[in-house]
C-alpha cells in the first residue's frame, strides 16, 4: 500500500530554513534587527509543523511516510536554529568594551579624513556653522 506524503515535515523544514535566510532582510529594519523576533517566529512555526509531521511519521507509519527523511530534516533544522542562536546571541555580542572612548563632557578628538569624493573633511569643518555633529562609526560595507 502506498503511504501518504507527509507534507508538514517539508513545510516545517522550508519555514525554518527561510527563518535563517530571511535574517538579511529583517536586519534592515531596527524593529526586527534589535531583537530577531521575526526569525524566531518563523523557527517556531516551522518547528510546530515539523513536530506534527514527525508525530504522524512515527505514530502512524503505516499511513504516513517520513520516518527517515523526517528525522534527517529535523536534525538539520536543529543545527540551523543552533547556528542562528550562536551567531545572534553570542557572536554579535562580542563587542570590545571601548573603555577609552571619549565620554560625555570630554573634548572630542580632532581628525581630518577623506570623504567619499576624496575631499579632506575635518571635525572643525563639520562643526563650523552647525549646532552639533553626529559621528556614526560603522563596521563598513567591505
Amino acid at each position, binding site marked *: 500500500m502506498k503511504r501518504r506524503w507527509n507534507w508538514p515535515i517539508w513545510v516545517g523544514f522550508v519555514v525554518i530554513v527561510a527563518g535563517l535566510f530571511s535574517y538579511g532582510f529583517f536586519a534592515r529594519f531596527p524593529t526586527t534587527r534589535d531583537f530577531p523576533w521575526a526569525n524566531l517566529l518563523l523557527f517556531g512555526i516551522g518547528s510546530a509543523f515539523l513536530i506534527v509531521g514527525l508525530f504522524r511519521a512515527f505514530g502512524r507509519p503505516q499511513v504516513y511516510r517520513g520516518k527517515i527523511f523526517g528525522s534527517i530534516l529535523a536534525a538539520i533544522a536543529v543545527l540551523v536554529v543552533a547556528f542562528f542562536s550562536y551567531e545572534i546571541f553570542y557572536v554579535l555580542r562580542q563587542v570590545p568594551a571601548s573603555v577609552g572612548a*571619549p565620554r560625555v563632557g570630554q*573634548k572630542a578628538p580632532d581628525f581630518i579624513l577623506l570623504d567619499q569624493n576624496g575631499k579632506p573633511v575635518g571635525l572643525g569643518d563639520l562643526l563650523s556653522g552647525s549646532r552639533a555633529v553626529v559621528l556614526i562609526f560603522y563596521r563598513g560595507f567591505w
Partner: protein
Amino acid sequence: MRSFQRRLSEFDARGIRVVGISVDPPDINQRQSQKLGYTFPLLSDPNAKVIRRYDVLHPGAGPKSADIARPAEFLIDSNGVVRWVNLTENIAVRARPEQVLKALNQLSPAGQ
C-alpha cells in the same frame, strides 16, 4: 544608517550634521552612498587611526581579520564637546535617529 538618511531632514532642520566613519576607502564609500542614496558624508579611515583614537576599534573583526570599527555613535556640540555617547553591546543594535534627536532636545530646546 538607512534610518538616519530617512530622517536626515529633521537633523538638517536643527542644524545637525550626520557623518559616517569606517575603514572603507573613498571609492567604496562613493559607491555605497550612490547605491543607498546617502546624502551625508561617509569618511574613510583606512588605517583606523581615528577609530583607534576614539577607542572604537574592533580588532580582527573585518574580512581577513582586518581591524574595523565597532558600531558607536557620538553627539558632539559646536564647541567640540561630547554630549551623548552610544556604545552598543550588540553589533546588531545600533542607535536610532530618535534616540539622538531626544538627546538633542534634552541638550537645549529646539531653535536655540
